């Protein structure tokens, strides 16, 4: 166990990762205690809180204090909002909480971007503002904490959380602190206060999800990124239109497998501890339009955006009728794009989806009429194909490192589409192509098949489960890079 004790402190060059041996060892040690205290709610929550804070410290270092500060401020603000009678005082506190939470987010995430936009980057060169580091997971824990404040303000939650430990644990709960899924207070807080009888079913499901998540992340997403997609997105001009288009198809499945793989691991870990976290994905590429896509992709963020941004905005613009709805959609998606990253690529990506949904809202009646007149099966399949292609083309904006590279890729796809290189490309990129196809095939397989497999795995004896887990690790290891890429959504 060389260097084990030194590895227990924070190292900014080597933050703790879910897919590291160190996490595996730490989680086993944690679980050793958890298995014996989990029936005692207080002890269980104290243990979970300590491990969650330590986990965040190992990932982000002293930024753990910002996490504690955010949670503490909102814990007290939540109380005051609940108990104060006066509406303007409630509003003042809501604005205070928003200012604190979004203030952190703006400072850490958007300060550099804003300096760039306003052309003052040089003025602040080499100052502390120029050296701001973004704490991993801040976008997620800030949204989680805000959910609680909004729910108290709107009285969606009956009473505020009295127990500080429970509240701090809700914000810092280690499985989903880094990249979601964004649990709402009304979903997770009651679970933290309840006693769990963890069943064999939950445990089998948890392990199965961890394995399937790891396969998606390492076998598909990382393999594609390292062996194909990164090369093209790094220097698109060195490749032809066909290769750039294939990279866009690859990027879509890569990001899906990366994020849904991460989500599976998170849900699986929570399952092992007896908690239920809402899923984030439901076969998004089967969507027939972009509106449906956002009901199947990053569902917890969509739900957050709908509840706390889109509906209030729609209400605000209600007198404008259809235009009001479209305005609300566009603003929501502009902010959603910006939430994903302080870069014009994300803003444009968000806006492109916003415009697509606005178009769908505008033409809803017309589309219903068409739907009634033509073959429904044809309509559905063509809708899925059109939607998938829209997603492929817009993912270029999401995945490109800057806007110039994204536009360069579009230009190459439309002006240098040389089909003569296809056979050579297949020869050179045969394995990435196989993995790419595998990714899409696995996605399109019926959910029932996955459910049956899960049930079969659950029914296996524990020793067989271990052997299967071992085989999965060995298979993944064949494609594993020592510098396995960080989960894409950790950056948001």
């Amino acid at each position, binding site marked *: *166990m060389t260097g084990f004790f030194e590895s227990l402190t924070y190292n900014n060059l080597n933050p703790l990762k879910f897919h590291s041996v160190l996490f595996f060892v730490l989680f086993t040690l944690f679980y050793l205690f958890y298995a014996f205290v989990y029936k005692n709610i207080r002890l269980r929550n104290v243990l979970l809180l300590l491990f969650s804070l330590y986990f965040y410290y190992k990932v982000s270092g002293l930024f753990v204090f910002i996490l504690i500060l955010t949670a503490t401020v909102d814990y007290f603000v939540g109380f005051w909002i609940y108990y104060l009678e006066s509406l303007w005082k409630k509003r003042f506190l809501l604005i205070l909480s928003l200012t604190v939470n979004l203030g952190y987010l703006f400072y850490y995430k958007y300060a550099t971007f804003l300096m760039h936009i306003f052309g003052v980057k040089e003025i602040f060169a080499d100052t502390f503002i120029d050296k701001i580091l973004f704490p991993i997971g801040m976008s997620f824990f800030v949204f989680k904490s805000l959910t609680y404040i909004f729910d108290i303000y709107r009285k969606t939650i009956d009473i505020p959380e009295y127990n500080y430990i429970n509240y701090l644990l809700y914000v810092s709960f280690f499985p989903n602190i880094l990249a979601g899924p964004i649990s709402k207070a009304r979903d997770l807080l009651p679970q933290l206060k309840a006693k769990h009888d963890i069943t064999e079913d939950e445990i089998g499901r948890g392990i199965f999800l961890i394995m399937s998540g790891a396969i998606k992340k390492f076998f598909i997403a990382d393999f594609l990124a390292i062996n194909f997609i990164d090369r093209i997105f790094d220097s698109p001009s060195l*490749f032809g239109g066909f290769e750039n288009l294939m990279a866009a198809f690859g990027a879509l499945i890569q990001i899906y497998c990366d994020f849904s793989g991460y989500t599976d691991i998170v849900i699986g870990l929570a399952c092992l501890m007896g908690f239920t976290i809402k899923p984030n994905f439901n076969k998004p590429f089967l969507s027939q339009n972009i509106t449906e896509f956002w009901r199947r992709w990053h569902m917890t963020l969509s739900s957050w955006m709908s509840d706390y941004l889109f509906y209030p905005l729609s209400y605000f613009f209600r007198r404008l009728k259809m235009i009001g709805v479209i305005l609300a959609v566009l603003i929501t998606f502009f902010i959603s794009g910006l939430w994903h990253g302080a870069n014009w690529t994300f803003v444009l990506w968000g806006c492109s989806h916003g415009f697509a949904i606005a178009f769908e809202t505008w033409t809803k009646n017309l589309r219903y009429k068409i739907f009634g007149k033509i073959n429904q099966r044809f309509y559905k399949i063509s809708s899925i194909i059109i939607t998938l292609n829209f997603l492929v083309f817009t993912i270029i904006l999401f995945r490109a490192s800057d806007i110039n590279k994204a536009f360069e890729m579009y230009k190459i796809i439309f002006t240098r589409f040389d089909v003569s290189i296809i056979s050579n490309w297949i020869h050179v990129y045969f394995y990435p192509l196989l993995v790419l196809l595998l990714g899409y095939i696995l996605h399109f397989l019926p959910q029932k098949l996955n459910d049956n497999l899960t049930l079969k795995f659950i029914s296996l004896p524990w020793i067989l489960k*271990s052997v299967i887990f071992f085989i999965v690790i060995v298979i993944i290891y064949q494609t594993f890079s020592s510098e396995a890429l960080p989960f894409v959504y950790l950056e948001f």
Partner: protein
Amino acid sequence: MKNPLVKVLAILFFLEILLFATSLLMPLPELNLNGNKFFFRFISSDELFDFRFKVKENATAEKLFTNYSLNQPFDFTAFFKRKPLCFGEKKISETYFLNPDIGNGVLALDKFFNALYTLNDTTTLRIAHYGDSQLEGDRLTCCLRTCFQHEFGGSGIGYVPFTDITSHTQLNRNYSANWIRYNVFNSPFRNNFYGASGIVFNILGSTFGHQGMTAVPATATVSFDFNPGVVYDHISIFYGKTARPFRIISNDDSLSKKIAEDTFPATDSFFIKRLRVPSNLKKLKFELLTSSSTDLFGFLIDGKKGIQVDNYSIRGHSGDRLLNINTEYLGKQLKSLNTRLVILQFGANVVPYIYSDADCKMLEALFYKLFMKFKEANPDISILVIGAGDMINIKNGQETSYPMLPKIRDAQKNAARKAGCAFWDLFDAMGGKNSISSWAAKGYASKNGHFYPPGQLIVANELYSAIMAEYHMYLFKQRENNLASKTK
């Protein structure tokens, strides 16, 4: 086990035991399957039990980077203002640069140096830079060209093919869809009369005529929008066998105005003919009209005099297929072009497929054959071989250099020595084993060994400095000889 959580613990512990057991029981970290083509890997005990954080910086590479300040905006002129070398300055270590004696005290690069030494005010001396995707779109070559032209004069960007699968670093190129691009590597031409670059272009529709069936007129277009800073004196068309004369209409694309219409004669060999195009026009459009099959090689965009470096790159290529070019035809072309130095930069594409010493021997023989072909094609040229650079291989979950890379480098070096060619060791110049991680971390190269613009500048400058050190040795030797003859 009534408590289901104890089962989870049991699963975790059993899993760790299995991983530990395989790490101990497997005699080798990997199992060789399918004749060296696939290795089944096992997690090593180090990976399971060594929690130390390993810093991946390569000290030699880091030291090299300290010589370069690559901040934006980039000052190209200042970058090339290096300390002038003195006559007789100490020779660079042979581990980096090999310039072997090819007999009678003559060194491998002396023919090129002699041409450089006697370069006059009316001629253009050319360097042919052959390579794979490392050089695609004029990458690396453009930096090397800047170095040479900065010191010895010259302008223009040299050879530019009509189409490519990559964009060009010095211009924006658009072309019609009816170009057919053949190359020695993966799209062979019907005969072995390729251009010196290993590429031939035909215009779709005109090919039937060549076979004596029908003469079908065809027109193809290509337009260039040069980057700011590109300066040239004239443009020439470089073409091979053609049954009938063909025409090129040149247009100033910024004004959509016809400038000239040139007719070029038929030939059974090849021609390099100037177009009547004014110097330094920024946007040009060419319409090529043929009525028979015409084997076109590309444009030459040159200055009045000085040095020109031509980029002859083909993606995926390892150099071996250049053997398919007709040797005599290649020799004549190199002579007509006044190419006096051939730089051959290959190897990256074979690195993943070399597993044993026997493979290296085979590679050495192949490279020797290639180098000798160029010598045979034109004995008046010097040849400089650039060895394969560092590349990442993911093995046992660790990123390391390909283990055979030093041996591949040695094979190239041995072949160069035997053939009487100079050799520059890119692998060692980069910092040796695992140096690519440092290059990649700095954003100078990708892990698979392709250099990004700052990396290209460093490599080109290091290469140029190494050549110049040898040149100054040559000048020193010349001066000594002159003094000796005067004394006599």
